[in-house]
């Protein structure tokens, strides 16, 4: 396989084969990881985490607790509490449209109907609404691709 | 003929937008960034519409001989 040529054209030959792509990428990541390992001792961790890390059975954020105070205020650490006026409620975050729905009718505007990520939102955390929308969108897109590929012969 | 007319209209309007934005910005009537955005939007349209106008034929087009 080794044809004669300058160093540059030899490198080019490796680069031009897309079979080598993942190896090339792996090489870059390994380089990054090595830098990471070298700098690891210098990294300090922040104790004041955004979300509580330990499970507190008395907290209503406790994922396995189905009792408790469902609509009570919970101690969620929010980056911008002023953006989430209902902090601690399941409807802590609403898109502007669903906030409008929630204000104008009694039947709409809970997290579940406000956006596809509603249920995940409720289970996960109360302050980061857009994340759950994107997470479920990713799942949705992946399902859409798989479904299309599976059914296109019909 | 109709297309020539509309190309001329578009070229004139976008040309006027460009010049007016520049003049208004120069005399402080319009924010500079707004004038810049207006020119960026209008200038490409002006170039293409102007060329469309003067390249549009006035008579009946003849069919080009392609060779096949």
């Amino acid at each position: 396989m080794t044809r004669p040529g300058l160093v540059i054209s030899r490198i080019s030959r490796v680069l031009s084969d897309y079979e080598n792509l993942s190896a090339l990428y792996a090489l870059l990541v390994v380089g990054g990881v090595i830098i990471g390992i070298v700098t690891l001792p210098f990294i300090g961790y922040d104790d004041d985490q955004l979300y509580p890390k330990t499970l507190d059975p008395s907290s209503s954020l406790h994922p396995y607790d189905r009792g408790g105070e469902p609509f009570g205020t919970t101690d969620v650490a929010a980056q911008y509490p002023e953006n989430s006026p209902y902090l601690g409620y399941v409807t802590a975050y609403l898109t502007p449209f669903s906030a409008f729905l929630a204000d104008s009718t009694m039947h709409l505007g809970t997290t579940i109907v406000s956006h596809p990520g509603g249920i995940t939102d409720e289970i996960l955390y109360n302050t980061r609404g857009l994340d759950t929308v994107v997470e479920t969108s990713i799942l949705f897109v992946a399902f859409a691709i798989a479904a299309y590929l599976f059914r296109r012969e019909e | 003929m109709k297309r020539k007319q509309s190309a001329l209209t578009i070229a004139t309007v976008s040309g006027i937008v460009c010049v007016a934005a520049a003049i208004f910005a120069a005399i402080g009537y319009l924010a500079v960034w707004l004038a810049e955005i207006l020119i960026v939007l209008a200038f490409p349209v002006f170039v293409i519409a102007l060329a469309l106008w003067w390249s549009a034929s006035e008579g009946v087009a003849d069919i080009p001989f392609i060779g096949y």
Partner: protein
Amino acid sequence: MIEYLIFALFIGLLFHGIHRKVIARVQGRPGPPIWQEILHTLKFSFKETWIPKTASQTLFVAVVLVAIGIWSAALFILLSGGSILLLFGIYLLHKIVEHGLGLSSGSPYGKFGAIRSVISAASELPLFATVGLIYFFTHSLMLSDIIAYQQVHGPLLIAAFPAAIAMYLVILSKLHYSPFAIIEAKEIVSGNMTEHFGIWRAGLEVGYAIKTYVLLYAFVLIFIGQLPLLAALLLMLLILVSLSFICAVSPMLSPYDTVTVQSLVTGAIAVYIIVLGVILA
């Protein structure tokens, strides 16, 4: 504002003409007159034009408009002392324009040009290195701050010499007839511009002329500083002539070799930045 845009357009076209003339003289040919590209653009704009039946019509026209629009915007960024990161962004957008030009027509030659334009995306890497190194020195990417920095500390051309080389390489990559211009190589007719004839080509020439002006002017502003317009133009002309010499004497590289050369230069500058960071820190 609009007058400056028109000025940049004609100077850019004139630069293209000078570029061709210098290449011709270096190669021992008489060459076209230097205003040839201006006539060229006018000629194209008078030609009868239509959109190929196989083309994706909206895209076919839209990329031409985008090409003119982004480089006009780039010129205004230079004039108002905006962020060079945004300039970098527009340069990358230009890549998408080249790409869209080739893909939209449906012509196999255009397609080859577009695929080569994707391959040659590595030509953006040196620009990234330039931005990184400049930020290292000035701690700001606003052009106005960079100019102010140079008034105090002298031209960045000396302090950040590798960055200047990288940007020089970037400008070289985008010139006609350059060793890196694989997307418009003659073995694929005119590459991605093959199907854009008549007024579409005239529109592209307008965009490209402003592009040449902007890139050269940005080089002068970033690495030498604010100069009177005539001095800046003279300097731009000198840079262009040096580029023309390179274009005249070097053959076109094979597509993947351009990627390798540009990546190696970027790698070298990245190492330079890290070493500099370690020494100064």
